[in-house]
């Protein structure tokens, strides 16, 4: 009887873990980038936004947008959306390739970083 109860408890526990709603990863990684990685845009974006899968620390949150000459055009980045969103405003971008580089520290103190590119088209006509 007791044995059966234990099995049921364990089964319920396993089910609870599997069905846990948010599959947060611990160690923050991007869930969504805007503009998306590799995207080609017809009109220049006014900001870059990265949504992470876990809250990040304001301290150490970095976001740069480099033009082809390696100059950072992004303003000081802002952390929002309960610590899960990193964004930075951009001036009016000229057509060309841009490299977004980010690095963050999540609440378990672990650092992650990455980079990707997007292109602003609008070829001269």
């Amino acid at each position: 009887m007791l044995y059966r109860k234990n099995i049921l408890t364990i089964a319920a526990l396993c089910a609870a873990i599997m069905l846990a709603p948010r599959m947060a990863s611990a160690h923050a990684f991007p869930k969504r980038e805007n503009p998306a990685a590799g995207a080609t845009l017809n009109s220049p974006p006014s900001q870059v936004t990265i949504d992470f899968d876990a809250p990040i620390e304001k301290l150490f949150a970095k976001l740069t947008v480099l033009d082809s000459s390696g100059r950072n055009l992004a303003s000081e980045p802002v952390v929002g959306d309960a610590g899960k969103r990193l964004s930075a405003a951009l001036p009016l971008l000229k057509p060309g390739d841009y490299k977004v580089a980010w690095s963050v520290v999540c609440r378990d103190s672990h650092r992650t970083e990455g980079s990707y590119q997007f292109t602003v088209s609008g070829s001269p006509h």
Partner: protein
Amino acid sequence: MTPIGANALAQWPIVAAQAIIFGTAAFEVALAPRDPGARSPLLRELAPFWIGLAAVLIAAAPVALLTQVSAMAAAPWRTAIAFVPEVLRETHGGRLWIVRLIAIAAVAAVAFRCADHDRAPAALAAFAAVLILAGALSSHAYDWGLFMVAMNFLHQAAASMWAGALLALCYGEYFGDRDPAAHWIHEVAQRVSTAAGWSVGALFATGAILTVRALGFDSSRLLYSAYGRALIFKIAAFAAAVAVGGYNRYRLMPNVRERASRRTLVRLVAVECVFILGVFGLAAMLANTPPVH
């Protein structure tokens, strides 16, 4: 060295020392045999041991903190020092470091001033529990919710209990001058064995839950991710310790009153402890490795 390796190496002594303090102190409080009304004989023998472990914590804490800050800032140690106040003030992990440093100071105060006081073991167990809890709250489990933090805490507490009970046994046998020793070790070994059995059960259950949360049910993640591979090594070291423990329990314990058997038992318990220390190192490794997501 990679930040993962550096962090793991710097945290290893802390993880081990806090676990052993918690385990030995809790064993002394809850399980060590004593004559009613008399002072516990084990207390006198463990006191210098606790002083040594407190010294390890004091020496290792600044190293681990600086290593962690340097990994957070992706900067060398010398530059990282400047970040320490900000990290302590403004980050989740930093605030928990403040709790840790206070708990370490408390452990040291008890160990250096009055380790053989009757209430010292209870105080040490409580402060070491705070250290373990601070670790659980700054681990990956924190982003998985409080239930997983509780699992992480129980996992660490069970490992501590196991290691602590075994070390108390070794210590009592090596340094105790009891008469007759055979009787003492017979009684202690039985309690240690019971504590170890329950601990291993709890470790297995909580470990399974934490693993499923970190890796899901995908066996390829176990084999092909850094987290999975570190976990395989940890499970192997754990299995080795359990195998030695099982041999002790089922083959040597029944004859523990015989001198030869007793000596082998204590020696093998020491071997078991070495494997558990290895498990602690791999646990520190895992705690710094990104789970698959």
